């Protein structure tokens, strides 16, 4: 599927009505989801979505789940904690483009994977909370949880402003991670504290190699 087509399909998905600030809830924007999955899809070196078992960690409304299915994932399991997000996720799954059984949802807390890798998958994709509000460090908790789940690789989205800090944390944890793409993220005016109409932030797509762990 061409990137424009992918983006257009993803823009048909439903969005949060009452997003929760504490969970940094918002739908991953179609062009970002399309870029993330489009990047791996186009990559010869990291062709890691097609026919893979994927986990979408902190799946929210399922934008990355949908993007992974559109780019050939064999099966995606969304992991999500919040009941309202799960309701939106299931509503988006009803779209006729998705054969229901390629898309499962498990209700769980991402932190439960920090000490026990109780779920397995080939690849984990995630748009975690950025951890720049009063939840510092939650972004790297998602990376650690994802690293415990994946056997091939983790793809995770982070603010470019946190790159140096993440590099330090990854090195300390012994993770083999690198920034593979930079994107512009147009965070919509979802929350009241966003003063400007659309706030543009730079984000990094990180890839953590899990094959050698």
């Amino acid at each position, binding site marked *: 599927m061409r990137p424009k087509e992918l983006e257009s399909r993803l823009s048909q998905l439903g969005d949060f009505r009452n997003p929760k600030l504490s969970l940094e809830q918002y739908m991953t924007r179609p062009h970002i989801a399309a870029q993330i999955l489009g990047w791996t899809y186009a990559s010869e070196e990291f062709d890691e979505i097609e026919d893979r078992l994927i986990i979408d960690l902190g799946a929210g409304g399922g934008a990355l789940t949908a993007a992974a299915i559109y780019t050939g994932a064999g099966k995606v399991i969304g992991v999500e904690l919040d009941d309202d997000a799960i309701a939106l996720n299931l509503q988006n799954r009803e779209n006729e483009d998705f054969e229901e059984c390629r898309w499962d*949802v*498990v209700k769980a807390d991402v932190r439960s994977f920090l000490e026990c890798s109780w779920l*397995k998958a080939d690849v984990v994709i995630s748009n975690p909370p950025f951890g720049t509000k009063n939840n510092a460090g939650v972004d790297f908790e998602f990376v650690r949880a994802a690293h415990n789940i994946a056997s091939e690789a983790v793809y995770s989205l982070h603010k470019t402003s946190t790159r140096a800090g993440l590099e330090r944390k990854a090195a300390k944890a012994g993770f083999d991670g690198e920034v593979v793409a930079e994107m512009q993220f147009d965070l919509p005016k979802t929350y009241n504290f966003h003063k400007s109409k659309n706030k543009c932030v730079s984000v990094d797509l990180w890839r953590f190699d899990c094959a050698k762990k």
Partner: protein
Amino acid sequence: MKLLTHNMMQSHVKGISRRFPLLIKPETVRVVEQEFNPDFVRRMLGRIEYEALQQAMTWLGHEGKLPKDCPSEDENNEDILKAIHHALLEVEMVEGKLVCPESGREFPVKNGIPNMLLNEDEV
């Protein structure tokens, strides 16, 4: 919850050693036909615990359709691959419970979604 998902999950109750497989107590089971992707099925043969898949099919009342032994990842027999495909992706527990094999802790499955949250006093 499809059985591929079940096969990838364990109990994460603290302080236990036997985490897998989660026992299945089904209330509602349905079968939804899915597009057959032999490459994906072959790939999954190297990932799944085959005995647990057989056990899960028995718990759901669909025993007897899977081959006795786990096929290899280069299996080409379409009937065999389709039987595995059916078990992994087409049989779904809609309502019921997953049970930790050691502690007996029950995880409810509602609307096809297993709730794997532990209470605060359990973590």
